[in-house]
């Protein structure tokens, strides 16, 4: 019988939640790396027992951990993220030039085919790759050397590269997103990059339709259609049907189109999920009701999913990397909150139940579907 393994990164450690395919009874293992911020954990699609974790601390900096036995044991691997050549400057919050300084790895993305290869998106925004299972890291400097780099500015959470999408049909193509520079695509394995922000409109920048400067919160893709992308921007839910070259807004009837997380159903490429958040000034659900919204039409028409979720006095947030799906039938949807709950829906969002209620604030959720 299939099994699911949910990898949860929190403000104070990592947790591994496991269940059988029914997804009703759960085993909770953790905290691993107790007391450290675990920004992200993700397993290798090519070797599910290999899992990487980004472990960070304001005191002690960055550590990367790797498990080769499905999360039972861990070993620290390389933690040196040195920018290639002269680091240069980007814009600071006040518009002055500021040196690029490594702070932490926000997102770890293992290769789809090679368990030794893994990517890391870091703050200050850059993309790194390891070809030796995380023991050493090299920057892909073409991204930061894009001509717009000196003009990138940090978002409220820092200037982080938080989203990495690998195209399963074209190994040379990948997408990344940076707060608050926007989305970029490479078609040559990371040598060169182009901004893919046409169609985005952000009222908080001087030119609302500028080539860069947009606060993209997250992007999701269905592996069967890697040219179709769904984006939760600071405000606005967007889609692109041409690999990011053009975006159109699909916020439709959402009660608010601010939010962080977005994901796609494992078997229905036009079924997508978001968690609307009231505003950039009030990072909690509208009316104290935690509602996931589902669109079965790739956006525009949305339905609230509330069964099993708190519908009063709920003021948590759901962060950008804190939603994931499994590939069972029916598709399981998972998300974690800043209040420490991790919710699962084993019926594609129709109903929800908490797996755990009282973890530290959840930063990231990833799911592995195991045979």
């Amino acid at each position, binding site marked *: 019988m299939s099994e699911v393994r949910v990898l949860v990164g929190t403000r104070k450690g990592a947790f591994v939640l496991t269940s059988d395919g029914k997804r009703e009874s759960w085993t909770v293992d953790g905290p691993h790396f107790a*007391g450290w911020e675990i920004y992200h954990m993700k397993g290798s699609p090519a070797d599910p027992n290999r899992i990487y974790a980004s472990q960070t*601390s304001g*005191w*002690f*900096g960055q*550590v990367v951990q790797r498990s080769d036995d499905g999360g039972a044991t861990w070993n620290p691997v390389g933690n040196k993220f*040195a920018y290639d050549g002269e680091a240069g400057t980007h814009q600071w919050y006040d518009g002055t030039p500021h040196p690029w300084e490594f702070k932490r790895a926000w997102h770890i993305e293992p290769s789809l085919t090679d368990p030794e290869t893994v990517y890391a998106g870091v703050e200050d925004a850059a993309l790194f790759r390891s070809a030796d299972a995380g023991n050493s890291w090299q920057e892909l400097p073409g991204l930061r050397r894009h001509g717009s780099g000196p003009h990138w500015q940090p978002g409220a959470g820092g200037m982080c590269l938080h989203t990495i999408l690998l195209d399963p049909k074209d190994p040379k193509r990948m997408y990344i997103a940076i707060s608050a520079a926007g989305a970029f695509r490479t078609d040559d394995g990371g040598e060169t990059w182009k901004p893919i922000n046409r169609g985005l409109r952000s009222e908080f920048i001087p030119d609302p339709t500028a080539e860069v400067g947009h606060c993209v919160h997250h992007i999701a893709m269905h592996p069967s259609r890697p040219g179709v992308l769904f984006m939760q921007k600071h405000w606005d839910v967007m889609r692109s049907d041409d690999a990011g070259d053009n975006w159109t807004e699909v916020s439709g009837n959402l009660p608010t189109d601010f939010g962080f997380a977005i994901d796609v159903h494992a078997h229905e490429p036009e079924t997508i999920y978001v968690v609307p958040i009231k505003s950039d000034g009030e990072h909690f659900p509208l009316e104290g009701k935690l509602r996931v919204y589902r669109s079965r039409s790739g956006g525009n028409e949305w339905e609230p999913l509330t069964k099993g979720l708190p519908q009063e006095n709920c003021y948590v947030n759901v962060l950008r990397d804190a939603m994931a799906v499994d590939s069972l039938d029916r598709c399981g949807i998972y998300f974690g909150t800043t209040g420490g709950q991790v919710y699962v829906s084993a019926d594609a969002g129709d109903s929800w139940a908490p797996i755990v209620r009282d973890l530290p604030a959840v930063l990231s959720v990833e799911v592995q579907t195991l045979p």
Partner: protein
Amino acid sequence: MRVRILLPAHLRVLARVQGEVTVEVESATVRSVLDAVEARYPMLEGTIRDHTTKERRAFLRFFACEQDLSHEPPDAPLPEAVASGKEPLLVIGAVAGG
């Protein structure tokens, strides 16, 4: 000479050690001691000092013999009591968080 070092609890867990660690150095300075610690426990590289500049991370302090040595030059001799192993060099995580 053998120098004793007491690491913060989180770094002891990371390095999988309990209590103090000791390292052998020819001359006891912050730099030589931390070089030796990192050589023996490579997972600690970057967690006490910056990988490249070797500057102390901002929220860590170096104490010994009831003195704050954090702002001493890294090649300054450590107190005799540390060099002789009578007292440990303390790596301290600053109290923060309110």
